[in-house]
């Protein structure tokens, strides 16, 4: 066979591209990194089979270029444009990505080596050994005007013989109230604390002003100071005047909680300090996965900002590693308080600028798209999932390509897939003890038969009754799905199963794996697929029925006049397509899920439509488009797992692909626009009026003008 120089160039180019793809994918799949060592390749599980599949991917690229020539460029361009559209959509969905920077749980803490200006707060008690030499013990607390406080002073051990008296002093040292008795009522009411009448209680004293107060505990006048354990408890229903204590527990809240009615946007916490105290204020996120960027300020009693900080340094993060999670947290370190008094820690997320918002949006989108576009190659098990899904999609693409070739818009592949899966599953489950070489072909054959029959039905309806195949196949899909669910629920589901699924198909009924990566397998379906692709190509291009199919696709009236038995051919076309779809179902049951599950396919067949359309219904190109589409599908799942973007994005991309790939006049549309803008040629773009909707872009090669 002699080739012209053009053909030679094309062949060379396609082989080169194929090799390039093999090299790239192998490089990623074997995870070679920077060291190209043969050992890494050999250490990979089933490395020969992985290589084989990679070579097959390369061949699919070669076939794409050889079969579609320049049109291949349009296929890729369509996908790129659709991906760009998806990128924009993802960006729109990520517009609120920056909100993560102002959202989340945070905590505030004040640390200091200095003694605390207060040692008690409401609803708290302290115990300490009473020092008879000092003769008194003092405790400090902060209160607001009108707070009604109850103060208990008691010896924890009633036998110790310590009779106490308690006084409340204001910040100036004036005695406001003194008590030395605890009545019966109180000993009963506070029986957890009080032990007898020797203890003292100040009950329900209303504080006269804001400020710090001192509790003074002494032995009752006329009694001896005895060494004993002394307890002081402070109760009040009022809100505590102070939120923070030195080295006390961290306090905090959630900034901008999602779906909250009144989201918290800033927070203030008070603490009491004395002049000269060296304090460290920390504001940090509760968990390291919270992305909020905090800033903190210290305000004095009048509300003036004394010092503020928005980002911690790396060293500070290391020093306070228990609290600070990253440099986005804020810290005020070793600040000397100028005076006694109540201070406020003010914290808020750093305000967002439009720039931050935009850059966060694109950062998130890029991250999502990174996962989307590179995800399937990032790990070998994802590569396996990609190939596995591609096998199903290629089969479905072939099934759809056959019917679309005859210009029949049958979408029955979904129902045929359900019946194929059901048939193969039932055969596998029932005759599990037959030897593998018999059982697997029988199961595949029954799946093919089931698909054939379920395809024959709408075929006959269309061919002999003229029933719209689109409507009938969609209805039959639902019927098939419900029937599958019914059989699964009432016949195959084990009685004690918690969810609707059959038992595992016995080993003998499964397709033998060629790559087994801890249960994720690529099976011999790869060989079956090569056979199917070639068979479909031969069927369409090299057999009488294929010729009839193409004739019907081109012009059904012409085919009818030309002596083609159009009815029989249409029926057979849909039934043959059913065989392939049934086998895809068998692959799902025997190769992927290894049992029958509910929702074994959620609209997979419709994705087959995209695969077939992208391939221009050419069976030799379907492997490439199937791989491409499965790649995007797997990528979208990786994206969904890694980021917050839903995998439906890929289905929207799918819709855009269909619209763009079938829009025959797209290229001329843009050319006309350009010419019109230049104003060089007046073009009449009036109504053509002869546009009869059902003439097919689906038949191959009707997309002239694609590469002009």
């Amino acid at each position, binding site marked *: 066979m002699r080739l012209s120089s053009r053909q030679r160039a094309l062949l060379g180019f396609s082989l080169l591209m194929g090799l390039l793809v093999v090299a790239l994918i192998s490089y990623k799949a074997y995870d070679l990194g920077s060291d190209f060592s043969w050992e890494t390749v050999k250490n990979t599980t089933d490395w020969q089979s992985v290589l084989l599949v990679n070579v097959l991917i390369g061949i699919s690229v070669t076939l794409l270029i050889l079969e579609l020539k320049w049109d291949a460029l349009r296929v890729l361009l369509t996908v790129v444009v659709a991906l760009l559209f998806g990128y924009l959509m993802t960006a729109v969905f990520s517009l609120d990505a920056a909100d993560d920077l102002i959202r989340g749980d945070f905590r505030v803490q004040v640390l200091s080596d200095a003694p605390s200006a207060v040692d008690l707060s409401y609803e708290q008690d302290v115990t300490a050994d009473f020092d008879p030499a000092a003769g008194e013990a003092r405790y400090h607390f902060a209160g607001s005007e009108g707070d009604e406080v109850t103060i208990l002073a008691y010896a924890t051990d009633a036998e110790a013989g310590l009779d106490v008296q308690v006084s409340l002093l204001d910040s100036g040292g004036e005695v406001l109230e003194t008590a030395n008795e605890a009545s019966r009522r109180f000993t009963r009411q506070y029986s957890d604390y009080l032990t007898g009448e020797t203890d003292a209680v100040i009950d329900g004293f209303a504080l006269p002003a804001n400020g710090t107060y001192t509790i003074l505990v002494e032995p009752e006048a006329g009694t001896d100071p005895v060494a004993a354990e002394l307890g002081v408890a402070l109760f009040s229903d009022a809100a505590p005047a102070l939120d923070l204590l030195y080295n006390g527990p961290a306090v905090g809240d959630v900034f901008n909680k999602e779906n909250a009615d009144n989201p918290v946007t800033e927070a203030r916490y008070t603490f009491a300090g004395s002049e000269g105290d060296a304090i460290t204020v920390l504001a940090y996120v509760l968990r390291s996965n919270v992305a909020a960027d905090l800033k903190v300020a210290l305000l004095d009693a009048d509300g003036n900002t004394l010092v503020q900080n928005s980002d911690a340094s790396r060293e500070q993060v290391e020093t306070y590693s228990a609290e600070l999670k990253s440099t986005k947290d804020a810290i005020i370190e070793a600040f000397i308080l100028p005076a006694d008094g109540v201070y406020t820690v003010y914290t808020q997320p750093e305000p967002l600028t439009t720039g931050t918002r935009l850059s966060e949006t694109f950062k998130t989108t890029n991250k999502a798209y990174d996962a989307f576009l590179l995800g399937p190659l990032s790990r070998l098990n994802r590569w396996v999932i990609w190939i596995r899904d591609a096998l199903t999609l290629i089969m479905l693409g072939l099934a759809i390509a056959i019917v679309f070739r005859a210009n029949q818009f049958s979408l029955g592949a979904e129902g045929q897939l359900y019946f194929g899966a059901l048939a193969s599953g039932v055969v596998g489950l029932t005759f599990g003890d037959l030897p593998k070489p018999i059982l697997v072909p029988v199961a595949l054959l029954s799946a093919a038969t089931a698909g054939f029959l379920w395809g024959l039905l709408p075929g006959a309806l269309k061919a002999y*009754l003229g029933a*719209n195949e689109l409507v009938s196949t969609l*209805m039959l899909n639902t*019927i098939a799905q*419900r029937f599958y669910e019914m059989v699964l629920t009432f016949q195959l589901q084990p009685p004690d199963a918690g969810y609707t699924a059959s038992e595992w198909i016995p080993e003998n009924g499964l397709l033998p794996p060629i790559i087994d990566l801890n249960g994720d397998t690529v099976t011999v379906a790869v060989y079956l697929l090569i056979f199917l692709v070639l068979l479909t190509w031969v069927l369409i291009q090299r057999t009488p029925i294929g010729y009839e199919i193409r004739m019907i696709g081109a012009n059904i009236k012409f085919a009818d006049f030309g002596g083609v038995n159009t009815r029989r051919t249409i029926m057979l076309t849909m039934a043959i397509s059913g065989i392939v779809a049934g086998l895809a179902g068998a692959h799902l049951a025997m190769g992927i899920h290894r049992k029958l599950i509910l929702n074994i396919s959620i609209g997979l067949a419709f994705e087959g439509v995209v695969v077939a359309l992208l391939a221009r219904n050419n069976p030799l190109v379907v492997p490439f488009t199937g791989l491409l589409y499965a790649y995007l599908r797997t990528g979208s799942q990786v994206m969904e797992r890694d980021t917050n973007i839903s995998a439906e994005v890929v*289905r929207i991309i799918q819709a855009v692909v269909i619209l763009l790939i079938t*829009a025959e006049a797209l290229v001329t*549309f843009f050319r006309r626009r350009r010419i019109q803008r230049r104003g060089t040629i007046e073009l009449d773009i009036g109504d053509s009026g002869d546009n*009869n*909707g059902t003439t097919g872009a689906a038949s191959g090669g009707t997309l002239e003008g694609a590469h002009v």
Partner: protein
Amino acid sequence: MFDQDLLQNVLGGIFSAAFLASILRVTTPILLPSLGALISDRAGVINIGLEGTMLISAFTGVVFSAYAQDWWGAETGKTVGPWLGLVMGLLMGILTALLLAFFHLRLKANLILSGIAINFLGQAGTVAIMYELTGSRGDTQGFLRSLEMPFVQLPDRMNDIPVLSFFFKVLDNQSVMTWIALVMVILVWYFMYRTPTGIHLRAVGENPEAAASVGIRVQRIRYLALTISGCLAGLGGIHMSMGYLQFFQNNMTAGRGFIALATPSLGGGHPVGTGFASGIFGLFYALSIRIGTLQIPSMLTQMLPFVATVLALVIYALQGQLTTRVRQLRAAEGEGFDATFWQAIQRLSVLHMFLAVIALLGIIIAISMLAAPDGFRGSADYSEGDVRWRALAVGAVALALILINLPFMLQVERIGRKAYFSAGAAVLSLWLYLGLLFMLFLETTDLDNLSTPLGFVTGLVAGAAIWLALGGYYLVQKLRQDYRIV
């Protein structure tokens, strides 16, 4: 086979005003897109994207009705919300249809494939945005406080008038969308048959070249037709999410947009016929909800509307073939063509079709019984074997019915020649169906002992009466004259 009491409850429920009301309720989301399909079909640009359009409108309506409460406060929002949802849903429906129209009419994309793309867009787009807004993939319940369209209350006085009270029960407390749908039937009829644009629209559908040659702007008409269809599908979608249910659910239209593609052809391409055809699907939907109380697998009842669609397609296609064949006979016989005789035969032939098609349901039930014996066992103590032989019996009877009716479906002329065989087949089949039905009815009275024979006799008599009324009488007369038989 079934639990008797339950079955009676179900049957009692079926023949009631409440059931008619529920038919009306479930018909609405089929009727509206059906009218859309009708208009686009009659303009020669059938809108396959109805399903996706419905979903988009349904979702838009829910979102805007929920956010209206945030924008105008709970009080005002509750009154404004539904209508804002309606307007925005309609707008999105129109935009979706215009997208389809632009791609098909301007960019010459294949109509069916771009319609499929619109459906993808509707199904995936709504879920993607719902996930963004609520974080849920399933439905918006509990996330969006969406509202529903108001319900129309009829004046209570109607309840006191004897005949009107029945209609009162049917029409009272229906969503305003149901009323809109009924009004739409009339509006669409008026538009298609009484306005110049409507007549142009039908002309474009019949023959675009001819229409263009007399100066009708074909593209413009088709844009209009697709826009209207998107608008009607949008209304249907809004009813789904703001009347039929009060929230949006992933893929909540569940094939109604596709069923709507089948109804115009069943309705003879006429708005009123389409209305009735939608009503039949509504009946099947309502029926599938009603017999859901029986202890048969829910999947089977869910299948019902879809099986009905396929069967309806078959009957419609068979009927079309029949008409063609009779027309051929008329052309062949010329003056001697006996129109009345052939009309009678045509009617009887359709009767046979129906009988055979109903029998197909019997086969489906038999297969289902074999597939799901547990589901059919009910509260009675039937063993699996019992169910199995009952299934085989049902299947065998159904198969026999199909076989005896099949010859008359396929060859019209035979009915003429074998009138008595036709009578036998029809009466026998009808006897079985009606007998079963009467049996069940009489069971509710105290005629327990009589019920079985009485039911069968009533069925036989009614079957014969129906056969004679549909044209059997004329047939027998004719045969007596022409062939001197009997």
